[in-house]
């Protein structure tokens, strides 16, 4: 378990993170709007940028040294836009990174590289140049290079951003598999991905923690706020103009319109909230 306590970070005298305290475990989803401080927090955890104050422990062991989290082999970080060595093959890039990570024996390095290529299902693509790989495949190389160092905690910043639908689903399944034997921290503003993957969720907004708990607990935050209208095409425009619509589902004879509202909608029925509703309830609650 990673415990963050009262982490503060300012950039150019502007607060980016304010007293952030979280207990991260399992597959942990960090969600929040753009500019919430998710990437900054990820980079602090991965010892890439400094923190102004606060603490970080991993299974009770203190990992903050001076203004940085200590560089360590337990945490591996994959940035949003991973790209290294565009003009060499994925296998050559992984071999070189293995050497940089201290795997000096050539045979051991080859075995390690083959193993991580298999783990991320990159077989058949390892001889392509990095620049020729699709976004999803490139991210797989990114995960493979993380796995070389056998970290127990994997940190992913917006892992599914920029991927097409098929790649996104494949990539999500890969992350789910990795979650079986790693602690995973994922930042995203795609709530659907967090809902699919996470066992615990934290919501950040403007650098502050608004919520931390299980997905069920986050959903419960919107209990009584989600309503569903059965509308005709003509009625849909009216609803769209006056309500906060979160989902529209076209059915054979009607259109189901999910609306987020903190007061009773007399012509609609109350429906059980989903994760996105809980997220909206938490984020909007802060605005009000």
């Amino acid at each position, binding site marked *: 378990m990673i415990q963050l306590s009262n982490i503060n970070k300012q950039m150019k005298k502007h607060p980016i993170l304010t007293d952030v305290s979280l207990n991260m475990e399992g597959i942990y989803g960090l969600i929040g709007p753009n500019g919430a401080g998710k990437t900054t927090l990820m*980079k602090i955890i991965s010892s890439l940028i400094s923190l102004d104050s606060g603490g970080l422990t991993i299974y009770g062991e203190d990992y903050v040294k001076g203004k940085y989290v200590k560089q360590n082999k337990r945490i591996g970080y994959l940035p949003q836009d991973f790209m290294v060595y565009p*003009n060499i093959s994925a296998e050559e890039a992984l071999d070189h990174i293995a*050497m940089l990570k201290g795997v000096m024996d050539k045979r051991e390095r080859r075995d390690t590289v083959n193993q991580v290529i298999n783990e991320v299902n990159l077989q058949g693509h390892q001889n392509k140049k990095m620049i020729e790989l699709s976004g999803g495949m490139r991210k797989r190389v990114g995960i493979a290079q993380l796995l070389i160092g056998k970290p127990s905690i994997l940190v992913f910043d917006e892992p599914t951003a920029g991927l097409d639908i098929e790649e996104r689903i494949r990539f999500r399944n890969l992350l789910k598999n990795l979650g079986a034997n790693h602690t995973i921290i994922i930042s995203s503003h795609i709530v659907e991905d967090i809902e699919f993957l996470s066992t615990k969720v934290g919501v950040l907004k403007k650098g502050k923690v608004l919520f931390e708990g299980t997905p069920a607990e986050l959903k419960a935050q919107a209990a009584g706020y989600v309503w569903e209208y059965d509308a005709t095409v003509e009625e849909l425009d009216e609803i769209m103009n006056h309500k906060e619509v979160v989902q529209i589902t076209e059915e054979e004879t009607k259109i189901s319109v999910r609306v987020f509202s903190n007061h009773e909608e007399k012509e609609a029925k109350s429906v059980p909230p989903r994760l996105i509703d809980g997220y909206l309830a938490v984020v909007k609650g802060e605005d009000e």
Partner: protein
Amino acid sequence: MKHFIENIFLSFRFDMKTMGVIFFVPVVMFAFSLSIIVLAPGIVDDRYNNIVVIQGLFIPFSCWWILYRLSEMYEEGAQETLVPYYSKRFPVDFFRYFFLHVIGLAVLCSILIIKYDASILTGINVLHFIILTLFYMLLGTSLIVLIKNVEISLTIIMIYTVLEVITQGDYMPWPHVFLFDPPINGPFLPIKLSVLGVAVIVLMVVTLIFIRRADKKPK
């Protein structure tokens, strides 16, 4: 030890693959310097110009490989991944390139001695060559970790070198690192070597501090 040597060899092969044709620029400058020394007429009055060629043509390119190696950290999407690895690996990379340049220096000095005689080079000259090589390598690493842009870093180094060599240190009012005249014992020489030594230490500290920082995006 076997693994270490094998990995050093593989690292050079990797450099050639990732850098492509620009890997050979320092080799070309070495060949150019060597041909000037070999082909220039052995006129006694002009023989110190051979030493200026080593200082102004061969040694400034000692920053080339390490600068391009570190610049890989600042390519789009690579910074967060490579900074932790390269900052740990820096001493190994620095010394393998330094070692290559010392070999190049040894060859050029040997050719000079063969062509003229041992009196052309003093111990001060050799010491100065080595410190000047360190200065240029660390100037390159400092600039790349601060500016995070290989073209701007190289431009600054080249402008500085051309200004110094062409004006022979008479134009700009900063401390000069070249020896344009045969070293003569006196107060001036220890000051010059001390300035160079201090510069090397300062640049090394700057490099070691800023190489770990992934806070700022490349420019």
